[in-house]
């Protein structure tokens, strides 16, 4: 009944409401997609698919915070992209080839050396997060980068809060160990 995209009609401001509620979360959705998927264009496609699906099902959204609802749809879209493959893979891409945004972390007063050091450690951290197994990677991204509560993470990954807690504890342990190993190789400051 709705070929192609979402719909060609708009019943009394549905689009306006949807945009006002959903579009402010674009960067957070994109961040999760980038960490879950191997390429930038796959991330673009998954996020677009997520918004179109969310719009189609917006009538079934029963209030509450919209962010976890959207992230759950995105996560399913990412899994669909990689249906058939064993698990979501991630290839590190550095901030250097990002090209779309200035480095947020160059704070006033940084010397050029500090700036390089910070960029270096950010690249390392991104890579290390990307190397975590998908089920640990997603809780790290949702908690540390997207700042979700445990309850919201539980909604997104469709698991009990107890699972969120134990995964996060393992994920942080793994990430910290990888970070220390990288430090040992002289990679991180």
């Amino acid at each position, binding site marked *: 009944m709705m070929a192609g995209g979402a719909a060609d009609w708009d019943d009394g401001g549905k689009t306006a409401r949807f945009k006002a509620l959903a579009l402010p979360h674009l960067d957070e959705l994109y961040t999760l997609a980038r960490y879950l998927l191997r390429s930038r264009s796959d991330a673009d496609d998954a*996020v677009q698919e997520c918004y179109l699906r969310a719009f189609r099902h917006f009538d079934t959204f029963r209030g509450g915070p919209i962010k976890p609802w959207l992230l759950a749809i995105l996560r399913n879209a990412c899994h669909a992209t990689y249906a058939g493959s064993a698990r979501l893979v991630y290839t590190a891409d550095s901030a250097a080839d990002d090209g779309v945004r200035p480095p947020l972390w160059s704070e006033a007063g940084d010397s050029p050396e500090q700036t390089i050091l910070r960029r270096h450690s950010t690249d390392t951290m991104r890579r290390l997060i990307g190397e975590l197994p998908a089920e640990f990677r997603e809780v790290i991204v949702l908690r540390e980068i997207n700042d979700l509560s445990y309850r919201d993470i539980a909604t997104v990954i469709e698991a009990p809060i107890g699972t969120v807690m134990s995964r996060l504890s393992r994920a942080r342990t793994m990430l910290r160990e990888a970070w220390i190993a990288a430090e040992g190789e002289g990679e991180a400051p």
Partner: protein
Amino acid sequence: MNCDEANVLMHALIDGELDAGHAREVEDHIAVCPVCAARLREFTEFRQAMNPAALRHAAPASLRARIEGKLPAPQAAASRRSVIKGFAFGATASALAASGLLAMVMRGDDDRRVLGEVVSAHLRSLQAQHLTDVVSSDQHTVKPWFNGRLDVAPPVVDLTALGFTLLGGRLDYVDAKPVAAIVYRRRVHVINLFCAPAAGATRRKAAMESLHGFNVRRWTENGLNLWAVSDINAEELTEFGEKFEAGLRG
């Protein structure tokens, strides 16, 4: 509590997700266990080194344009009725979800529930023709009106010159406790500013949340919890909050 439990729960402690009782149990264990104490310190330091802002990815502008292009063109704004209907559904769904939740009490649950209540109070004020108990654009009339009606003196700031007209004040109820509602108007939009004594922290940074299409800016200052609720956009509500805070400091 043993070390295995503490190893998991200390993360919830770091994240501020434990209720007071469980937090106390973890802290008691850490006080007597140097291994877990060291671990907690390591994780706290590690998180400080994370720099989340730098780890984010910004969506390219072309992606936003592509998504907006695929959505149908907007027509009229949502009717108040449909928003209220959605809200009633939302409340039922939340109540059902809440009843099935696991026993551990999370701080976030409480915040979320109170958020629902302030939005609900905002909606009631618009529906029931009961926006104000005291009608005045004079802060020196509105503020004393609350004397004897509440055990706090709510701050009332005149922001008329800054584009937010003071309409008056009202006594309302949030979380089964009486609160002050100070009512402002921005063009045709009503802003309810709810104000109640804060139990814990005396200061908490402002956070913007949205529920059922309403924006809520909440913050804590001078031992008071404040919630500004309105259907104006987040930017304007932030502006309102910032001007109100600035006005408070004189």
